């Protein structure tokens, strides 16, 4: 992390500028799709809910991996702890989903701050190893404390009250869908504001050259700790959504594979763009779901192939397709400008 990892944030001057109209369309589109899906997807809202949960999880990873340059494989720890916190809260304290959700955010956020404080003084491979150790320890804790978590059998007996006492969680999944959409939207606005604030810009600087940032007086460690905690809280929020919409929590939410999948989603979509998480998670999930229906033995091949192509040819993930499109358009325009 001490070396500048990338400078792609500077857009090439030759690019056609995005007009305000198109930018607005770009911002509105994902939410319009999400709202539209609610009305057309009778009987498969559940997949939409799942996708939004993964988007939120990938978004939380983008804050640290994409913006702050913290390479981690332990992010499932916060996702799973959030899920278990929400589940345990509903069993032992109150089945109210909103209070449970806030509880999960606080617990996973604190866990992020504590583990972050312990390991954030390291960088690179050392840090990566320590995140692996953290998630493995928490997984094993979940496995061993069967009286608390149900161990490998999973957490049974969750009850979730209707939201505001009105909107029941049922098999049609409308409540879970809207709930996930609203939570995602709030976190997105928060992330957007955060990443365009001086704080967010300083993270950008830390990623590119942390020594120089320190030299100009940025409290690097504190900034990293802050974003690590925020990202953990967000991942925990995604975990709470998972717990409330599934009404069951399995150990798999804490597994290394979960960390891996969310990383694949983010890289597929593109890091450091916030919307990359949207595209990556949605494409991953939809491709997996649809190809697995056609032939259950095929989806890994397709998703794997997509990832290879993306990594090889699209440095900034699938979000780069937009950039390439714009470059083609500007090239076309330049050519038509010629006499």
């Amino acid at each position: 992390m001490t070396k500048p990892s990338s400078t792609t944030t500077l857009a090439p001057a030759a690019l056609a500028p995005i007009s305000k109209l198109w930018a607005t369309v770009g911002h509105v589109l994902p939410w319009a799709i999400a709202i539209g899906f609610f009305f057309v997807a009778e009987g498969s809202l559940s997949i939409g809910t799942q996708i939004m949960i993964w988007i939120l999880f990938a978004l939380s990873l983008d804050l640290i991996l994409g913006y702050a340059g913290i390479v981690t494989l332990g992010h499932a720890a916060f996702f799973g702890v959030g899920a278990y916190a929400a589940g345990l809260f509903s069993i032992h304290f109150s089945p109210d989903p909103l209070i449970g959700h806030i509880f999960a955010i606080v617990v996973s956020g604190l866990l992020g701050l504590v583990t972050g404080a312990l390991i954030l003084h390291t960088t690179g491979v050392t840090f990566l190893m320590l995140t692996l150790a953290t998630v493995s320890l928490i997984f094993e804790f979940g496995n061993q404390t069967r009286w608390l978590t149900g161990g490998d059998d999973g957490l049974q007996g969750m009850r979730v009250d209707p939201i505001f006492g009105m909107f029941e969680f049922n098999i049609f999944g409308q409540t879970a869908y809207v709930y996930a959409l609203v939570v995602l939207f709030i976190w997105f606005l928060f992330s957007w504001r955060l990443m365009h604030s001086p704080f967010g810009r300083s993270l950008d600087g830390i990623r590119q050259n942390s020594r120089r940032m320190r030299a100009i007086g940025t409290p690097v460690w504190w900034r990293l700790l802050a974003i690590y905690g925020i990202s953990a809280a967000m991942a925990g929020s995604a975990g709470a959504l998972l717990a409330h919409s599934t009404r069951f929590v399995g150990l798999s939410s804490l597994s290394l594979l979960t960390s891996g999948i969310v990383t694949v989603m983010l890289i597929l979509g593109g890091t450091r763009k916030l919307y990359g998480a949207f595209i990556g998670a949605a494409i991953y999930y939809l491709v997996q779901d649809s190809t697995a229906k056609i032939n259950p033995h095929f989806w890994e091949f397709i998703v794997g192939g997509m990832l290879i192509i993306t990594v090889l040819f699209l440095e900034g993930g699938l979000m780069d397709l937009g950039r390439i499109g714009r470059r083609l358009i500007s090239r076309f325009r330049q050519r038509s400008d010629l006499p």
Partner: protein
Amino acid sequence: MKLFMRAAAAAVLSLSASVASADVVKIGLIADFTGAFAVWGAQFQQGVEAYQAVNGKTVKGPDGKEHEIQFIYRDATSAGPEKSKQLAEELVLREKVKFLAGFDLSPQAMAVADIATQAKVPVVIMNAATASITRNSPYFVRVSMTIPQHGAVAGRWAAKNGIKKAYTIVSDYAPGYDAENYFQKEFKAGGGEIVGSARTPQQETNYAAYMEKVLQAKPDALFMFQPAGSPSIAFVKAYVERGLKAAGIKLIGTGETQQIFLPQFTDDVIGVVTSFHYTETNTNPANLALKAQVTKMFGDKAIPDIATVAAWDGTGLIYKGVASLGPSAEGIKYVDFMKTQKIDSPRGPIQIDANERDIIQNIYIRQIEKRDGKLVNIDIGKEEMVKDPWKLDNPPKSN
């Protein structure tokens, strides 16, 4: 809003009833077809297809009409339980399935309990073995096994067969704890003494240190519960290499020596005794029929095992239900019908517990032998019609 939801629920349910009367009974089978647990999905599908090949794809209902039985397979991708829940919702709401089936892992089955209960869809569980599962929904029916069935029978058998002192080593996760608990409990009840126990990490492959401790404790037998594949192979290897076999310590297990895993073992495994509900070498007519059909359809490499057998039996149960109730009865009627069923399974006689909707079956004691150059399980004893011991210990709470 609540009222609206209820109305919508009623509308969809009545819709599903009317669609089902179109003489096609759809069954959604959810299992892992890819990832770490892909072997289960493949076996389920082979079991179902073999059954349908032998018994036809249609069932004559009480109305005298032939009703098509159609399976829809969905891949849970060895992912978390939320995936199986999502698939179950889609199968129920969009495909309007009349039954759900499959479920290799326990969390996958538990995650669909809500859906089964709300949508009143019977769920035939074909593998997931955690004892408590069938209590999670009144629509759950299990045709596979429970972990305590194996552990308890192994413990009783050991106590009755001259073993005074035993040592247990189990894998460190929930099924391991259940196996350990029930083996120790029944063994002690039979007058045996537990001289030591250990829990090993799930992916452990170096058992040397554990074996030394077992040697020092000088038990008559060592009970193991290890995940199939490399852990159990390494376990048996260490047991022989560290001289436990030579010292006369008997090795007792449960599912480690299933037929699908046997080819991976060396001859070290000969003489190991296991307690299990299906022995591939039994000569029941149903077993011979299943084996012949699977070989015919999928070649010599397809080995029918517990998941194939459970899928075969589960399909049979659904066929019987449709034959006697027709294609469009209420979900709970099918469950009630299944509750009293006795089936001649490839594994032997089985029955569905009328109160618990769980499997009652013979548990066989088998020993590994080498016959015609192949390692096989051979029955040396059995305990008849074993109920799930966990449920006997934890009677349902009366409301």
